[in-house]
């Protein structure tokens, strides 16, 4: 089933009775070439690119709940390529290029909106750091504009420019940054993978990983044993538990990140904005809700809900930056389980077990990475070689000291 303007018109005239489910509901076969554990954004994108780029279709994605029910369905939907470090810079640049062609690629409206991202700075030192970051982005071939205070005021007149505590010195403007419809990304990749013959198996929890003589041979699931030559773990906040089934102990600690949405308002915030003096970022969804968030809650948790001090900190930061949102009513808040690494950067690598691969450690930056993560994980699983833009996302970089600490915060999981 392809979407088109003509099809929408035709279905509209015929009472919308011709739409069919976007993917099959197959039963698991006993044997596959490859298994992907985890039917979220990264797992579905991996399956899609394995089929599309490498012609491998005897593949299944195993999802314990429903497709797209994890972090891909509960994030703040920001897409950007404003990284500084070699290793991150080329990866996120590749991802943004894939985003820019994603709707044509998937024939699916992921509502990718390049509304522009503005990271504010509030001191001379921060301006220097952002100027340097902007130069790194330009050197990577992406876009960056350094705005002074008046430049920011011209496009964001509603910020509090009068306050003395955190004066706004300017901002780094990344015009190609923006947002996308998070669920649609999962659904688009799922439909594309399914159309190419990938089996998407929901309600199928992996309960064990079989390893013989150092080589993976398959998995046990709540829907029976499934054999496979290669298995990819793409399970975000639950990565430690799945990897432990194969005897691995990983450099990951799971933490909560809370996010918030207000009631629907008329359009008022046209960009994605981040506050440089308190971790706070905000955008407005197409439904009108203000979508915003801040720091982690800082303690290990799988509860998928946060505590009130985290709420308080985010609200205070928001009010310090743009007092106009003070009257908006928060409709709901939620917490996602973030797989935090000691340097804040992800892992796309082989594991010490032959045929077992890992795509994890996305911390709270996984959404924008979905296309490139799937692309690079598929490349790794198909060729056994790291993709050039993901070659530094090694599992052993912590042991060897080749950390990718984008913000220079130090080797502790909850600092990133």
């Amino acid at each position, binding site marked *: 089933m392809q979407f088109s303007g003509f099809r929408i018109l035709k279905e509209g005239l015929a009472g919308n009775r011709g739409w069919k489910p976007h993917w099959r509901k197959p039963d698991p076969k006993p044997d596959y070439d490859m298994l992907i554990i985890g039917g979220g954004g990264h797992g579905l994108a991996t399956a899609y690119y394995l089929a599309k780029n490498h012609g491998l279709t005897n593949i299944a994605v195993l999802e314990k709940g429903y497709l797209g029910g994890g972090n891909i369905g509960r994030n703040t939907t920001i897409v950007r390529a404003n990284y500084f470090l070699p290793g991150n810079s080329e990866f996120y640049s590749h991802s943004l290029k894939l985003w820019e062609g994603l709707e044509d690629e998937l024939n699916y409206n992921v509502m990718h909106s390049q509304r522009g991202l503005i990271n504010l700075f509030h001191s001379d030192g921060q301006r220097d750091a952002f100027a340097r970051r902007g130069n790194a982005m330009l050197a990577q071939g992406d876009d960056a504009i350094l705005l002074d205070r008046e430049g920011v005021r011209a496009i964001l007149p509603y910020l509090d420019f009068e306050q003395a505590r955190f004066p706004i010195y300017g901002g780094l403007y990344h015009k190609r940054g923006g947002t996308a419809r998070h669920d649609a990304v999962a659904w688009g990749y799922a439909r594309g993978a399914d159309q190419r013959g990938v089996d998407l198996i929901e309600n199928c929890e992996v309960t064990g990983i079989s390893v013989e003589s150092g080589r993976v041979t398959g998995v046990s699931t709540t829907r029976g044993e499934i054999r496979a030559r290669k298995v990819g773990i793409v399970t975000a906040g639950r990565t*430690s538990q799945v990897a432990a089934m194969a005897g691995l102990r990983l450099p990951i600690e799971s933490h909560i990140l809370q996010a918030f949405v207000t009631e629907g308002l008329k359009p008022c915030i046209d960009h994605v904005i981040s506050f440089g003096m308190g971790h706070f970022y905000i955008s407005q969804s197409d439904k009108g809700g203000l979508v915003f968030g801040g720091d982690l809650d800082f303690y*290990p948790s799988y509860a998928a809900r946060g*505590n009130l001090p985290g709420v308080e900190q985010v609200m205070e930061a928001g009010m310090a930056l743009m007092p106009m949102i003070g009257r908006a009513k928060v409709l709901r808040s939620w917490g996602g389980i973030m797989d935090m690494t000691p340097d804040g950067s992800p892992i796309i690598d082989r594991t010490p077990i032959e045929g077992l691969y890992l795509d994890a450690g996305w911390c709270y930056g996984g959404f924008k990475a979905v296309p490139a993560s799937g692309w690079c994980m598929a490349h790794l699983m198909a060729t056994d070689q790291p993709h050039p833009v993901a070659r530094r996302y090694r599992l052993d970089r912590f042991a060897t000291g080749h950390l990718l600490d984008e913000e220079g915060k130090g*080797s502790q999981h909850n600092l990133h």
Partner: protein
Amino acid sequence: MYLPCPCCGWRDMREFTCIGAADYCDRPEADAPPEAWDNYLHLRDNPAGPARDLWYHAPCGTWLEVARDTVTHAVTGSTAVEEAG
């Protein structure tokens, strides 16, 4: 969330800083092999369920190991961390 400080009793979590898993208390010897240091600094069991993590209570300066459930957020107890020799 409230946490039990061995010195001060149950206190609001705003008074505490979480450092992470209590693995930070098991510091290897200075001449331990690099693998031991990697294990200590980076690798974590990351349990979903009962866990022990390390917190600092700023008002009284106590470091404490808290027994907590990472799925339900139930706190079951805490002990002060002894000063290592």
